[in-house]
C-alpha cells in the first residue's frame, strides 16, 4: 500500500496534463530540502550506485518509530533531485512498515513514462529500494 502523502503526489501527477508533469517534477527538484548541518560534509550519507549521477541518502528512525529521509544530489541532475523531492515529501515521517510495504512500482500511474525514458524512470525505484534496505538494516522491520 502506498502511504497517503505519497499517494496524493502520485494522484496529482496522474491527473495533470502532460506538459504540467515535467514542471511538477522540476518543482520537486527545486524544493528538495537542504541537508541538515550534521550531513553537510556527506559523512554518514550513503551513495546510491544505481543512479548515474552522484546521489546520496541517509535514513534515520526516531524513538517514535518514524522514518526521516535526507537526500543530496547536484543541481545538474534535476531529474534525480525531483525523484528525491517526491520521496522526501511522500515518505517523510512514515513508519518503517509503511515504507517497507510501499510497492516498488508505485510511480507507474504518474504518467512519467511518456516523458522520461525507462532507464531514467527506474532511478525512482532504485532510490526506494535503497531506502527500504536502510530501514531493514536499522532494525525498522521488527
Amino acid at each position, binding site marked *: 500500500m502506498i502511504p497517503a502523502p505519497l499517494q496524493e503526489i502520485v494522484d496529482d501527477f496522474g491527473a495533470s496534463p502532460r506538459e504540467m508533469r*515535467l*514542471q511538477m*517534477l*522540476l518543482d520537486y*527538484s527545486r524544493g528538495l530540502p537542504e541537508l541538515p548541518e550534521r550531513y553537510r560534509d556527506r559523512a554518514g550519507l550513503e551513495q546510491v*550506485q*544505481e*543512479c*548515474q*549521477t552522484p546521489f546520496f541518502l541517509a535514513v534515520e528512525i526516531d524513538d517514535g518509530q518514524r522514518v526521516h529521509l535526507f537526500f543530496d544530489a547536484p*543541481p*545538474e*541532475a*534535476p*531529474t*534525480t533531485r*525531483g525523484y528525491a523531492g517526491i520521496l522526501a515529501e511522500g515518505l517523510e515521517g512514515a513508519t518503517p512498515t509503511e515504507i517497507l510495504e510501499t510497492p516498488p512500482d508505485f510511480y507507474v500511474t504518474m504518467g512519467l513514462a*511518456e*516523458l*522520461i*525514458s*525507462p*532507464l*531514467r524512470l*527506474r*532511478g525512482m525505484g*532504485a532510490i526506494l529500494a535503497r531506502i527500504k534496505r536502510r530501514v531493514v538494516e536499522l532494525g525498522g522491520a521488527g
Partner: protein
Amino acid sequence: MPAERDPDPKLSEYSHPERLVTTAWLAEHLDDPGLVVAESDEDVLLYDTGHIPGAVKIDWHADLNDPVARDYVDPQAFADLMSAKGISRDTTIVFYGDNFNWWAAYALWVCSLFGHADVRLLDGGRQKWIEEGRPLTTEVPPRPRAQYPVVPRDDATIRAFKEDVLAHIGNGPLVDVRSPGEFNGELTHMPDYPQEGALRAGHVPTAANVPWRRAANEDGTFRSLAELQAIYRDEIGITDGDDIVTYCRIGERSSHTWFVLTHLLGLEKVRNYDGSWCEWGNAVRVPIERPGHPVRPA
C-alpha cells in the same frame, strides 16, 4: 539562409569544420536570424533549470522517438516538431547538451536522417559553456512557428538495422563504443547505470572496442584531428572508403562516434546501428563474441 562558418583554427583541421562551432563563436551569433540553438540532454529537466539564451529544447525521448514503436518519429511528426520549434528547412541548427553532447549528437544524427542540411554541434557542449561562465536563462524563447516541409526519412545511408549488421560481419569495420566491461561481456549495461534489459553480454563478432570517451577531451571538446587519426586510423585500421558501422547500447554514445568519423575524419560511409546492444543482446540466434568463448552460434 544558413549562418556563416566558425573560422576557429582548431576546427579548420577537421574534414568538415562547418559541423562544429566554438562557445566563443556561438556567444557572438546567438541573434543570427537563420540560426537556432537546440539543447538535447540526458537529463530531460536540465533545459528547464537554465539554458543558453534563445535555445529551444529537443527531447530525445519525447520528441524524436515514436511513442509506440521502437523507431524515430515519422516525416509528419518530424515536420510538426521542427515547425513548432521555429525551425525551417534552411535553418542552421546548433545542438548542444549535457554528458559530452551524447544526446546532442544523437539529435543531430536524427535530423540528418531527415536530410536537414545545416546541423552543427557546439564543441564542448553545455559543460564548457557553463565552465566559461557564459549566460544561462530559464526563459523559453517565443519563436514564431515555421513551415517545415514533410520530407522522407532516409534509413539506408547513415542508419543500420540488425540485418545490416549481420551482413556486415566480416565485410567492414564495426566499432563498439561501449566501455571495456560491456564489450567483454562482464556487464550488460554501463558502469553505474541501471541494468537495461539485455539478456546476453558480449559484442558483435569482429567489432573493435573504442570507447566513445576516447574521442573527447576533459572539457567535453573533441580531440585534435591528429589524436583522432591515431585512434581510428592507426590503431584500428580504418581507411578511406571503408564501410563502417558504429553501435553502443541504445545508439546515443555511438552517435557521438558517428559524428567523429563522419564529420571530423571525413569518412563517407558510416552508419549508426541504433538498435545497438539493447537489440542485439536480446535477439535470438545472432552471433555473439565473448572473451574465453568461441563465437556462438558457430
